């Protein structure tokens, strides 16, 4: 595939495909890739037959825990996770919206303790389809269009 050639193949590691182009940097932030020593390749505004354009990230010699990788579903709900060993695809699946989200999302309520004092956020995902997050502290809902990241 043309897109595969633009970002070279990896021997071992993880490929995250079908990221919306505008959210590639957000995914990098959520996965904290800035602080990794592994080799990381990424591309954005690549052609996609399914979605028009897409972004892709490849991380050499890194396999993510499900809870970590699923957090990107907030900004890349249709992302595909591909696990590569010896240049072979050993696992390929869609990311899933997790049951809880800890730490990365800001509570939409300005009067919530997490926005007033130095308290890490925690949310329960009350709807996975529409993505509605209920704050563990103030109990108010943050809906998809209001999600912003810390």
């Amino acid at each position, binding site marked *: 595939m043309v897109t595969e050639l633009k970002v070279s193949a990896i021997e071992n590691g993880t490929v995250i495909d079908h990221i919306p182009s505008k959210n590639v940097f957000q995914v990098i932030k959520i996965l904290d890739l800035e602080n990794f020593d592994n080799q990381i390749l990424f591309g954005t505004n690549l052609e996609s037959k399914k979605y028009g354009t897409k972004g892709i990230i490849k991380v050499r010699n890194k396999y993510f825990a499900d809870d970590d990788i699923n957090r990107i579903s907030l900004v890349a709900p249709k992302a595909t996770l591909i696990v590569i060993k010896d240049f072979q695809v050993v696992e390929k699946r869609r990311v899933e919206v997790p049951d809880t989200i800890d730490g990365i999302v800001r509570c939409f309520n300005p009067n919530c*303790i*997490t926005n007033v004092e130095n308290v890490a956020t925690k949310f329960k995902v009350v709807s996975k389809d529409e993505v509605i997050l209920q704050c*563990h502290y*103030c*109990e*108010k809902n943050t809906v998809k269009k209001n999600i912003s990241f810390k």
Partner: protein
Amino acid sequence: MKGKSLISINDYSKEEQISILELAAHFEQNPIQKILDGYVVATLFFEPSTRTRLSFESAVNRLGGKVIGFSDSSSSSVKKGESLKDTILTVSNYSDLIVMRNPVEGSARYASEVSKVPVINAGDGSNQHPTQTLLDLYTIRQTQKTLDNLHVAFVGDLKYGRTVHSLVQALCNYNTTFYFISPNELKLPSYIKMNIKNSNLKYYQLTDMAEVMSNIDILYMTRVQRERFSDPLEYERVKDAYILKRDMLTDIKENMKILHPLPRVNEISEDVDDTPQAYYFQQALNGVFVRQALITSILGIK
């Protein structure tokens, strides 16, 4: 319930709530018992309150315990910039139980996570006020002899009223039929309605309370505040529609009672006070018994 904080009404199961109500009935019979001798309860009120703070303090004093605390954050180290975490950690060294009111939503949950002693939420901004909910449940049960299958109307500011939100959540356990009467700007939020839908209960949203008067067992009134309206003209247009007057109490059920979390401004005319339906001052008295029951349960004394 020993050692178990109460932050949100759903922290306690239906059975735990009922056991508090039953114990409250015992304290209503015997409100003065010296069973808290040697115990210290801290009441931390970061914003003013009359009923809630005084009824907590009265509850502790009548049981022979001691109260420490403050009634206004300007007389505490918070004014010097101390964090909530530090305040709670310090006070939990000096007391067996912390009662806290704080205008920041979620502050009570956070306090319960850092505190070494249990925390009772006495109101966190527009979020929760679970002891008000317990005393409302107690009062409803006292007047109706049951909590099951009742028709309950809520009138006024249903958008911002935390007492309404918590009571609606609690009543979802009792096959309640709900009537919500408010101006369009102050309708019940959808996340509270979700509780009712998940419990498969019936609810009706209206703008005129006259339509439901003959159906209901409990009329729960709340204040409609001018500052909640984005358009002052809208407030002027609707304000009189949410005032309960004596002549509205003609075609009603015999057992119907009027409740109000208080303070009242003008939403219940004073001539309603001496009708057999008015029950809001007894409701405030019940706050002492319910808080006695809660404190002694959490401290593991009863």
